[in-house]
């Protein structure tokens, strides 16, 4: 899973590439930690090249969402592939995370 973060002021554009599974979930957590330090009011994640997420990966998105919500910031996931979006839908995560 490659995570590329581009910062423009208080806005962070994030590009996700590859698979997010049990083997690299911890690394993904480390990669997105900078997004949880409270500096960004808007986080925009481009999921065009995200191939897969496991339930462990969902947890990471949830933690990020809770962090973002607690300080009144915004998190948006975009361009998700249908089979990935399905995981978010099935688990009900679509209800708590904004997916465009």
């Amino acid at each position, binding site marked *: 899973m490659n995570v590329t973060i581009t910062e423009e002021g208080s806005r962070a554009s994030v590009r996700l590439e590859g698979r997010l599974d049990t083997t690299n979930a911890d690394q993904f957590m480390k990669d997105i930690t900078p997004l949880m330090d409270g500096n960004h009011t808007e986080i925009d994640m481009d999921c065009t090249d995200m*191939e*897969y997420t*496991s*339930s462990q990966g*969902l*947890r990471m998105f*949830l*933690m990020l969402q809770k962090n973002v919500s607690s300080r009144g910031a915004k998190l948006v996931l975009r361009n998700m592939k249908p089979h990935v979006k399905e995981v978010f839908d*099935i688990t*009900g995560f679509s209800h708590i995370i904004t997916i465009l």
Partner: protein
Amino acid sequence: MAYGRKSISNRLSRYVLLISAGLFVVVTMLLGFLTRRIIERVSEAVAAKDLELAVSEVEKVITEVERAVDNVDWFVERNSHSQPFMKEATRELVTANPNIIGSAVAYEPDYFPGKRWVAYYTFIDARTKEINTIPMGNPDYDYPMLDWYRVPRLYDKPMWSEPYFDEGAGSQRMATYSKPLRDTSGTFFGVITSDISLEWLAGRIRDIAPDAASYAVLVSANGTYIAHPDSSKVLNQTVFDVTAAMGDSTALAMARDMVAGNRGSGRFNAGSDDDSYAAYGPLSNGWSVLLVRSYAAAFIYLYEFNLFLGLFIVLGLIGMYLGCRRVIRRQTMPLVEFSQAAMTIAKGNFKATIPAVKSKDELLTLHDSLVYMQKSINEYIAELKTTTASNERYESELNIARKIQMGMLPQNYPQLDNCSLQAMVQPAKEVGGDLYDFLVADDALYFMVGDVSGKGVPAALFMAIARAAFRFIGPLGLPMAEVMSRVNNCLCDGNKNEMFVTIFAGRLDLKTGRMSYCNAGHNPILVSPPDGASYYLRAEANLAAGLFPDYPYKGEELLLSPGTRLVLYTDGVTEAEQRDHSQFGENRLKEWADGLNHAVSPGSATIDLYSRVKNFTRGADQNDDITIMTIQFGKENKK
């Protein structure tokens, strides 16, 4: 350990030997060249010196002969008419001068009227050594016509003859000094002569040459050999004959220069392998002395010297090789011991003693490295033992956890009239996060399948809580949405790790076939009616449990016709992957369900699906727990 020729000491010694031998060869060649030059110079100097000696020696003889004649001719000229006096004068010359072997006074024809030959010759008999005086001159020996008489008379001055072989009284090779005589009236009346023996002169010259390397030669005014080590050349050959035969233009030029009465020296080649050196100088009577010194002969000493030098070098090299080998072997002995110690360590004896080192050099560094390595290995082994022990303990604890977890899942299936079911969990790791549960109460079957996010002990504990909550809350008779809400609140309480669990929970009324259910973020279950195609139960997508307290879960209902089969599963089934990440997927699952005869029991169906999934992944690592629960409703289809 025997390395033989390949040991370091042997190899280094050979290198030293090769390098030294190379150096010696270069030095020896240089030395040989220089020595050659020096010997050549010395040879030339010796030749020059020998030449001077020979010149002065011969000059002395010539001068003595000339002086002796000069001493007597004054009296002879005053007594020109006294024949007895002449006889006496010749005897006097021969007896008084050891250099003179013969002497004569010869009168001019008709000095005594009517007499053509009046001459007296005194000589030392070569055999008897007696001094005889005889008259000379007869028709066979008409001396006025001979050179020794004729030439001085013609030139009117004392002269030395060319060397000749005297067939008369002397019977040997000689040269003659002739001086014209004039009486008191000034009239020429004859000549007085003195002979010297060329054999004797040759002997004198031979004595001058110091060694076999050189020889002296005496040549006459026209180049004829007067004295030469090869006596056959004397009188028979000239220097021009010899030098022309050599084919060396330098030699010929020097011969000309010498006969012209000059002094000189030079190098020439006499036709053999080595060059010779010639030095020549004139004598006062027109003769010349030539000294020839062969370089090659002098080089004999050089060859001897080189032979000794070579022998010395070879012995020295052998000694050096043996010495080097011994020293290097002694110096590198610790290396051998080190390698043995290292081998002992490598074979597993980690406590092997490493030999001590006294010197403070690379060997000490090696020793320290080995000691450090040994220490590190021992520490590492100790650490490894501890780690292994704790790993073993950890693994055995995990196994226990797995047993506990599996033990929590119900294994005893209820014997029901119109319903049967079978479930299985295959964890990806030793302890997984999947769960299932079922129980029968009030003519109803309560069942659930869940998937906890993550794996391992935390997931298993979270799963235990979920299962306990369901088992307690489920049979209370509440609507399934309410059951899920309460389970959710139980899980949210104290869930700081943001763990969650997706749950499909249902209650099947065993009399009516009415199923009420609630899906908290779980995969849609597969419904296979007895009279139609299978379909996924796309239920209300509630949020997974454990995340937000008091989340409003929504429940739904479905009426099952008898013979309907339900397949509950976790994403370990649909997301089972081959090595290229292609997934089993919902479509394959549906195809499997459609292709399965309804007469197949839930137990066989569960196992069949599991083996279908395993066949699909073809031995790729299982990366998620696989849970399958199959429920068949309907008495008539029960087996």
